[in-house]
């Protein structure tokens, strides 16, 4: 028969022993093994607990509380020890799993979209934002639409076979379009105003190749025909375009010029973005860079398309895409755009 005081002593002794054991555990496994030893059914503490039933009520209550607190202390010690071990394990795992982050990632070849395509897209997007749609037309085009409809009579030098490609066997009735302007004619013939379109595409001229000329090149044409379209509208539209393309704070000017299919006609100059108008090599000392041709659609052209020039007016403009791409990307020889050299193309892989 164990007295209450003996039992108390046993609990206290086992607590100390158990805590020491917990403390001596070296890893989670030995800790778990220790837990069975000190708290399991056959543990000294469990055995001591069985002595409680021989005590009177008051003693049993008192020592029962002690027994519980001993168990709780041991559990707590195990838990905190376990947390230490777990943290250590985790740390070891991170070390095992460490990678050298400075090694390169797996290789994915990043392709690219051609600089001319990119330029075309950005030009188109500006005008789409201003309410224009995109129109297309054939590259092998009726000479009537490429020339006659655009007020370019048959004796005009641009029509000569030294300047324009013709399709064999067509008696010069079919040419390779020398401009995207015939798309204007097709659009005006196919639907009544209001018309707001841009027409990008490939064009052909029998020009000798040099740094600024190729016999195949891209143009983008724009056309607006509506009631009450004014030259001020043309000016405002092109100013928007020029600033979006070349820089918001640049000066833009329309300079009178001559085109057979517009009247009044103009060329648009943008302040040289290299020298800001002071004159440099890029702008040949002029301080201005010629960007495109434009004007109010000639009444002759409107009438040719069956549109009454007294009711409707319109403007049109056309630009060379290679030239704009060259200006935007600092390309001095546009033939580079057609060499398809990966060393050049890769430079256009990163552009949004």
């Amino acid at each position, binding site marked *: 028969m164990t007295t209450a005081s003996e039992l108390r002593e046993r609990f206290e002794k086992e607590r100390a022993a158990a805590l020491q054991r917990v403390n001596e555990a070296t890893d989670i496994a030995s800790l778990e093994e220790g837990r069975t030893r000190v708290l399991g059914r056959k543990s000294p503490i469990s055995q001591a607990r069985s002595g409680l039933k021989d005590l009177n009520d008051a003693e049993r209550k008192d020592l029962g509380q002690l027994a519980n607190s001993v168990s709780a202390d041991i559990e707590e010690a195990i838990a905190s020890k376990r947390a230490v071990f777990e943290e250590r394990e985790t740390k070891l795992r991170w070390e095992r799993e460490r990678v050298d982050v400075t090694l390169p990632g797996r290789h994915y070849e990043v392709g690219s979209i051609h600089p*001319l395509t990119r330029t075309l897209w950005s030009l188109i997007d500006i005008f*789409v934002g201003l*309410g224009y749609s995109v129109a297309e037309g054939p590259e092998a085009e009726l000479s009537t639409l490429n020339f006659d409809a655009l007020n370019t009579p048959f004796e005009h030098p641009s029509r*000569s076979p030294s300047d324009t490609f013709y399709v064999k066997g067509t008696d010069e009735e079919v040419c390779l379009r020398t401009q995207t302007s015939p798309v204007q004619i097709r659009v005006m013939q196919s639907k009544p105003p209001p018309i707001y379109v841009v027409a990008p595409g490939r064009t052909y001229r029998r020009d000798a190749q040099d740094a600024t000329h190729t016999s195949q090149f891209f143009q983008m044409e724009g056309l607006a025909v509506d009631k009450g379209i004014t*030259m001020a509208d043309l000016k*405002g539209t092109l100013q928007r375009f020029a600033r979006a393309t070349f820089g918001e704070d640049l000066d833009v000017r329309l300079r009178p010029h001559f085109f057979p299919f517009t009247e009044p006609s103009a060329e648009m100059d943008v302040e040289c973005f290299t020298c800001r108008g002071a004159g440099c090599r890029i702008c040949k000392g002029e301080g201005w860079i010629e960007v495109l041709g434009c004007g109010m659609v000639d009444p002759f052209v409107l009438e040719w398309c069956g549109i009454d020039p007294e009711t409707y007016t319109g403007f049109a403009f056309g630009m060379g895409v290679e030239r704009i791409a060259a200006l935007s990307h600092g390309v001095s020889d546009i033939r580079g755009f057609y060499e*398809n050299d990966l*060393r050049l193309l890769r430079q256009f892989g990163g552009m949004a």
Partner: protein
Amino acid sequence: MRVPLGWLKEYVDVDVTPAELREKLDMSGTKVEAVHEPAGPIEGIVVAEVLEVTPHPNADTLSLVQVTVGSGEVERVVCGAKNFAVGDRVAFARVGSRLPEMTITERKIRGEVSKGMLCSASELGISKDHSGLLVLPADAELGRDVVQVLALDDIVFELEVTPNRPDCMSIVGIAREVGALLDKELHVPKAGLTTVDIECPATVDVLDVKGCPRYLLRYIENVSVGPSPAWMAARLLAAGVRPISNVVDATNYVMIETGQPLHAFDADLVAEQAIVVRRAKEGERLKTLDGVERDLDPSDLLIADPVKPLGFAGIMGGEDSEVRPETSRLLLESATFDKVSVAFSSRRHGLRTEASARFERGSNPDAVPYAAARAARFICETAGAQTARREPDVYPHPPQRARVTLRPRRTSRLLGIDVPMDDQATRLRSIGLKVKERTERLEVEIPLFRPDLTREVDLIEEVARLLRFDRLPNTLPSGPAGGLDASAIAERTLRRILSGLGLHEIWTSSFMGREDLEKLALSEDHPAWQAVELENPMLDTETALRTTLMPALLKACAHNVAHRETDVALFEIARVYEPSDEKLPREALVLGAVFGGMRKPGDWQEPPEPWDFFGAKGVIEAAFESLGTRRPSAQPVGGMPFHPTRAAALTIGSSIAGAFGEVHPDVCARYDVPEGTLVCEISLGPVFAAVQEKVQLRELPRFPANYIDLALVVDAGVPAARVEELIWKAGAPEVTQVRIFDLYEGEQIPAGKKSLAYALELRVPDRTLTDEEAATVRDRIVLVLRERAGAELRT
């Protein structure tokens, strides 16, 4: 058009700086292409006379030239030019003098001392002409500074004259513009001609009045041909024309001044003193002043005498009637010619001259007598000659002055700015138009020097450019909503996905030549041979519009391989062209791609992986998937330019969309690309047509799927697509996904067989399939595969 400012100021008061004048001209539509400032430092160059020319003892191409500047002292220089003679006056750059590019020092040239240099026009910065020395007028005073003699200190404007402005091809015309811009009056000098009572022996017969609306002759006799005075030679040089003789220079001077081309014939070389203006006859020939013997075309307009052609009307005279040093009697032609006729002849013979450049823009019959009189006056003054009072002048149909009505309100409406009526009238008057103001309209009479003004809108343009375009406000029209259509969006998506998959976009020529197709070794009946041929190709290698992108793709590949860029994945989206029954060829958008070298270059983790058939096929499939269209199906295809057993035709639905595969080794060799290079070409029309514009959402499955694997053994020749097709058919409707995960041929299975392993996903919409149900489906599939494809389950 070169305009020396000193010359211009003779007709109009210029009270602004050259920079201000340049800006105003630019903004009026006559662009100043360049401003030639006084040619840098030119100091100490003086007029000298050639005393003696002897050959250089050590060099055949050089001479030793003795010159004097008049003070008695004689200098000797070594000279390479041959175009001068003893007695000529030349520009002598003494030791110590300065030219824009150099300072002159004493030098030994091939062993002979040269104390200075004799200058060409290009060395003096006058023109690009360095073909010989600049020979100065005989009246140039010895020892005088060449800068003063030649007015080299004058600023010269080089103008771009648009093709609609014949009037601006003259100093007077430019002066009229400048007067309008500066609000100054135009002073046109009098012709100032004195005629004498001599008989004009010449007759004029114009047989083609349409080609030659006005023809006037002035007869001049007692001419002594010689150099022109220094002032005239200097102005011609500044204007870019080389002085020749007092007669020729007078005609050129007046042409530049008035815009009216003139030509002087030696009257003694004109048979019967009779001028005939007519079209050329078949087989006729003419030796022009440039020494070229030309075969004439019956549409060439000629100036002739009764026995021979004398010159190309409005373009260039003939050698047979040229003014010679001994010429004493002249017939001076002043005429107008049809611009179309001049343009065609000039182009046909590749002969562009100062005269043709003016006639092509249009001519002014009113200028004809004035220009003739003014040139005759200069010839009389500088060649001691006299001119007859009578001047034969054939001018049967003087044109009416055009009258054009301008509604000033229309101007304001078209320009988008209110321009008062009187302002419009003032601006039109400032360029020499006669304007009457009526109610709500202006009646404008157009002088003959402005043939470009025929309609109201032409006058609106004149008002607008004189007002300056920068006065217009910047406004935007109120357009509808814009946007890209479905195929434009699909095209952009395709370019983006292909570049995302590692391909680089290229643009190549639309042209091809026969050789391109020959190198592909296409069969005779291959449709690519049916090409749209060009009438006038620029190169033998680019004679037709291309029917296939393959040659260009292979060339682009070869270009990069040659530059040691051997890992190549390129694509192009462009048009091909084929003849059609319509007037215009058919144009179709195609996607082409070329793959070669490594798909993955290999790195510290993975071995390198070359582009192969399935690498390329994966790109094509991913591209189609990105468009939301069905994957194309592939069937083996034979025939060039492909590898006989590694190429496929691609079909969408029932139509063939394209082909791809390894390029035949022979073709690789011909295009200089490595064996194993792959190409693909797909028509995008049918692809884009199959693009779903709007995605309709399918409900997500609510019950889990069941998965089974199927390992089959079939004859090696059975296509995988056939097996997959049968799985779909037999497994319907439960099978929702079929994925091949293994292909095996080898020792484990009988020879001539292959093993294919598939992972299948099975589901029904309303519940989870039990394993028993899945097994039933599997048995159903196996049964069909056994019957239809001879397949056995692999054990």
